[in-house]
Every structure is written in structure tokens, then in C-alpha cells.
């Protein structure tokens, strides 16, 4: 009898705790998700992914990490966020020109569909322009607004071989530096880094393909290199062994900026890897970064083994503003 009581007591104690422990782990995620989805319809503030203030100061740089808040009546759907999916950090260099607002608008309309997207917009300007600041705030996206000015090409005396810094390089490097300063290798949420120019066209499927990148993933890009599309050559074992391009296929990485994505961990692991600023031949910019990060063997082909086109290297025509005349025909205060 004492033994039975003993056993009964032990059972009564142990059973509920084992149940609790086994159920707890599973349900730890579900309530958190329910909170996210439930408040997607209402007002929601999402905790930001990095420090809110920056004490360091660079030459002409400032940081701005903003919490995602539901704003205009039009953008009634704040971008979806999940604690399980990896974050895609999209680095976009941009510069002021008549079509800038249009390009960024339609880019933002695409990005609003991608869950867990963090847009790092780097302006090529001395100061952050109000146009971009306002645009970013109104989209409701999760963003970081940086700026750095590319020094205009000047010919030094006797140094006529000083080549131009390829457009966007300094801006992309700044974004990489920001990422390295904001995230440490131990952060639990995975991240993918993608370089997206503001005039290209991206399908939504592309972002889901790149989300599973372990080191560096690659895919075909349309309208580059004077071809319908350029793509990596993938063998039967699913490994990249070459590049299907006409323009210098013997580059270490004959791929366009929009054709690859890098895992954030790799970026943090190799803190010296940046795009080379000077002395880079045309078409070798991507290689200047990638060769410090991976070898050809480590590349992961996506887009159905590099057979589908999910990104197009479109370019927008420069609008002909002949009727503006010298003084400007239209009201300069109206933002376009």
C-alpha cells in the first residue's frame, strides 16, 4: 500500500510536467505567430532589427532605422513578417534623376509583397534627399536609409589613368559596412543579402528562391551581356561549372549584380570582402566581391537549376525633356 501510494504520487507529479514541457516547445511559436497575423489587420508596430541610434559618425553618413507603422489609408497592408523566415536585405543604390521617384515607387510596390524584406536604400548624394525620405516613409516598408556621395571623376595632374568608380559601388560598400556593424554573427534570425538596382524588374518568385541560400546562390538574368539572358552552366550533379555568356565568359564570376544572393552569415564571416573601387575592368565588379567569399564549387543554382528567368535587367529610357527649355516650363516645386 505504501508502495502504491508512492508510485501514485510520483506519477501524479511527473505526468503533468512532462506534458507541459512537451507541449510548451511546440506552442511557443504558435502564439507569437497568431499575434503577428492578428495584428496585421490592425495597427501594428514591429520591433526593429537593430539599434535605434548610432553614436558613430561617418563623413557624410547618417542612419535611420524606422519601425514599421501602418500609415496611409492606401497602404492598408503592412508588409508581412514572420519570425521563422529569413530576412532578405535588399541593397539598392539610387541617385537623383527625373525617373527616380517612379522607379522607387514601382520597386516599392513589388517589395511590399515580399515577407521579411528589409530595404537598404543608399543614395548617391551629399545628404539624404527629402524625396526619398518621404517616399520610404510612405511605403510602409521596413527600411534603412543611408547615403554616401561618389566623388565625381576628376582628372589629377599626371594621373589620367584614374578610372571612374563604377556607379553604385561606394553605395553598396556602405550598405555592406552597415550590415557588418549592425548584425553580429550570433544573431538568431538568418539573413540573405541581395543587390537590387532600382531599374530592374523582379518577380516575387525570385525572393523565395534566394531565401534558402546557404552561401551564395545564382540564377539567370535576362537582357544582360547583349543576350536574351545570361545564366550559369549547371552540370548534372547540380553544381555550377561555368557561365553561359558571350561577354568574357572566363571571368571568375561572369554574372550580373542581380544574378546572385549572399547569406548574411558569409558577409559577417568575411568582414574584409567589399566591391573593389578602382582598377576594375568592365564586368568584373561582381567578381571583385564574390571571389573573396566563395569558390565556383560552393555556388547554389536556383530557379529550377538555372532554367527559369525570374529577374530582368530592364533599363528605363531617359525622358526627353526638350520642352522644359532653359528656364523650366513646369513648376519646380512639384515633385516628380
Amino acid at each position: 500500500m505504501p508502495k502504491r501510494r508512492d508510485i501514485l504520487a510520483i506519477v501524479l507529479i511527473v505526468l503533468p510536467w512532462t506534458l507541459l514541457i512537451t507541449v510548451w516547445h511546440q506552442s511557443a511559436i504558435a502564439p507569437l505567430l497568431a499575434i503577428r497575423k492578428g495584428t496585421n489587420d490592425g495597427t501594428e508596430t514591429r520591433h526593429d532589427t537593430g539599434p535605434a541610434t548610432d553614436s558613430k559618425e561617418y563623413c557624410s553618413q547618417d542612419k535611420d532605422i524606422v519601425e514599421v507603422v501602418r500609415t496611409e489609408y492606401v497602404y492598408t497592408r503592412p508588409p508581412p513578417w514572420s519570425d521563422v523566415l529569413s530576412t532578405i536585405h535588399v541593397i539598392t543604390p539610387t541617385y537623383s534623376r527625373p525617373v527616380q521617384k517612379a522607379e522607387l515607387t514601382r520597386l516599392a510596390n513589388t517589395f511590399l509583397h515580399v515577407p521579411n524584406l528589409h530595404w537598404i536604400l543608399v543614395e548617391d548624394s551629399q545628404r539624404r534627399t527629402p524625396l526619398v525620405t518621404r517616399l520610404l516613409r510612405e511605403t510602409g516598408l521596413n527600411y534603412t536609409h543611408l547615403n554616401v556621395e561618389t566623388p565625381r571623376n576628376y582628372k589629377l595632374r599626371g594621373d589620367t589613368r584614374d578610372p571612374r568608380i563604377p556607379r553604385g559601388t561606394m553605395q553598396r560598400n556602405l550598405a555592406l559596412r552597415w550590415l557588418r556593424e549592425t548584425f553580429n554573427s550570433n544573431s538568431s534570425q538568418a539573413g540573405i543579402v541581395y543587390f537590387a538596382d532600382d531599374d530592374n524588374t523582379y518577380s516575387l518568385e525570385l525572393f523565395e528562391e534566394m531565401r534558402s541560400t546557404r552561401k551564395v546562390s545564382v540564377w539567370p538574368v535576362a537582357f544582360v551581356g547583349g543576350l536574351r539572358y545570361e545564366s550559369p552552366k549547371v552540370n548534372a550533379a547540380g553544381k555550377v561549372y561555368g557561365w553561359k555568356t558571350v561577354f568574357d565568359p572566363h571571368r571568375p564570376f561572369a554574372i550580373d549584380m542581380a544574378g546572385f544572393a549572399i547569406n548574411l552569415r558569409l558577409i559577417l564571416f568575411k568582414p574584409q570582402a567589399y566591391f573593389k573601387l578602382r582598377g576594375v575592368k568592365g564586368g568584373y565588379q561582381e567578381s571583385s566581391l564574390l571571389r573573396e567569399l566563395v569558390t565556383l564549387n560552393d555556388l547554389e543554382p536556383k530557379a529550377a537549376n538555372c532554367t527559369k528567368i525570374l529577374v530582368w535587367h530592364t533599363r528605363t529610357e531617359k525622358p526627353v525633356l526638350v520642352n522644359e527649355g532653359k528656364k523650366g516650363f513646369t513648376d519646380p516645386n512639384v515633385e516628380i
Partner: protein
Amino acid sequence: MNGVAVHSALVCTETHNAICNIHNEATGKDLLISALNLYTSLTHQQVIMRMRLKLKTVFVLYFMVSLLGLIYALMQLGQRCDCRDHAKSKDQQISQLRGELQKLQEHIKTSQLSKKTDVPRIYVITPTYARLVQKAELTRLSHTFLHVPQLHWIVVEDAPQPTPLVTDFLAASGLTYTHLYKLTPKDRKLQEGDPSWLKPRGAEQRNEGLHWLREMGAAAKGKEAAALEEAVVYFADDDNTYSLQLFEEMRYTYRVSVWPVGLVGGMKFERPVVEDGKVVRFHTGWRPNRPFPIDMAGFAVSLRLILTNPQARFDGDAQMGFLESSFLQHLVTMDDLEPKADLCTKVLVWHTRTEKPKMKREDALQKQGLGSDPDVEV
């Protein structure tokens, strides 16, 4: 004597001892038995006591542990649990992530669009034609349209029959759409080397869209007909850029609403000039003397007006820049125009144009027979 005494004493002691021994043995056994008895009773007692103690301490322990557990759980509530990744296998993780993703994507596609059913519908007519950048243009256009509630996309191809590219694309887009086609007759079509301004483009396709709308309007009954009373029609080319606010501006149009268009007419933007809430003239640098010097992307027409004016259509033979006028002059006068976008002071749509991609290398390869795989859709 002494010896004997001693001896007897010894004997006595011996016997005594013996007796004692025997006695001892006897008592030893007794002792043993009694000792055992005592022991069992003692242990019995002890066991009972321990049992009682055990139960008491057990309950006390239970209380303490559950209290600690509760505190721990409360602290854990705010933090993420990191051990879920270790607990599950990779496959389970992947399938869980995929499920998550699908759920989120479904949520994106259906959440807001299905919610707002009580707003007027917007019919967007987009003429399109096959060229390299067609799929890219339609893709990014669809991304914009997916954000607009109650939008019905009418895509009219300049083709003898629907192309698989557009058909598959529309089916996967997630939008409400109608897929039409109308081939432009050869004499009205732009030839390879012609500049884009030589002949107006898309007139036949837009007329086809209008024709479909009129047929649908005639066949509609009851609730559907009531919905059509408030609907708006907008002509959106596939290479322009539209902000989301534009659609909210045009949604409530009684007759014809107008607004500025960016990057058109050789200027930063063209706009109607508004005084006292009415459009008095148009600020444009190119041929301002047209009846309606406005771009196709700069106005929207209420469906009611289109259904009650069955003869209004685009004139494919119109002069350059007069295409919009050929349609609007049958419908409305300048006085009746409704200015939107903050009395025509904000630019919400841009007349962007996409460069034709250079295919020099592709063409060279095609000649050698080494062109890129034509099965891969671009």
C-alpha cells in the same frame, strides 16, 4: 581447601559460564528474535513515518516546483525559444517553412482585396504586344495592381490569338482579369524602323476592351448592374509607372476625372490647370491646342458614361497626339472634368518608357545557330 574452592569456583564458574552460555544463548536467541521484532516494528513505523513524511514533502515540493515553473514560464513568454531548431529535423523545418510561406502568400493575395468589396470597381484596360520586355513589364505592373482592391484587369493583346506567355502569366498573377486579343491591321501597325510617335498605338486594343465592357454592361443584371453604375475605366499602358494613391483618386469618378502625368510631352509633367475647382486649360508644352491635350494615363472615365455613349471609341487614324481627344470629345466637355490629385498639383503617374534591350550578341549567335535556348521564356 583453597584449591578445591578455587577449583570448585572455577568449575562453578565454568558451569556457571556454561549455564550462562546456555542462558546467553537462550537470551541471545531471544534477544535476536526480540531484536528482530523490534526492528521490523521500528522499520514499519519508520516506513509509515517516512511515507507520511514523503507525501507531505512531496506535496510541498510539488508546490514549490510548480511555482518556480510558473515564474519561468512568465519570463519565457516574452522571449523567443531557440531550441525549436534543434528539436526538429531539417526536413521538418523545411516543410514547416514552406507551409509558413504559403500561408503568408495566401494572406497577401487575399487579405485586403477581398475585404474591400463595397468600393467602386476599377477596370484597367492595358493593350500589350509581344516584345522582349513584355513579361517584365506585365510582371511589375501586376505587382502594383495586386495592392489595389476591386481592380479588374483587362489585357488586350495585339495578336491574332492569345499567346501562351500572357495566358500563363495572367493565370498565375492572382488578379481578377479578362484576357482579350485584337490584331492591329497592317497599315496601322508600326513597322520595325518607325519611331514610336509615327502612328498611334493600341487604339484597336482599347476599343476591343471597350466593346467587352459594353457587352458585359448590357448583360449584367441586379447587383452586378448596380456595381457597374459606379465603376471606373482607366487606360493603363504596360510600361508606365502607377502609384497606389492614383487608383484611390480615380475611384470616385462621376464622368471623367483628370490629373497630372509625369515625364510626358517633353516635360517633367503635364497637368490640367484648375481654377475654382474647375479645369480651365492644360499646361503642356506640346500642341496645347488639342481638344484634350492630355496623356492616356491622365484621365479615367466612369463606366456609366461609356455604356450610355456606345459610339465613343478611339480613332485609330487620328493624328499623333489626338488619340485621347478622339475618344474624350464624344463624352465630356472641359467644364465637366473632375480634377483629382489635390486639384492637379501632385504627380501620381509617370510616363516611363523601357529601353529596348540590346541584342547584338544574341543576333550574332542566332546567325551561328548558337542562340540562347528559345524554350526558356523571357
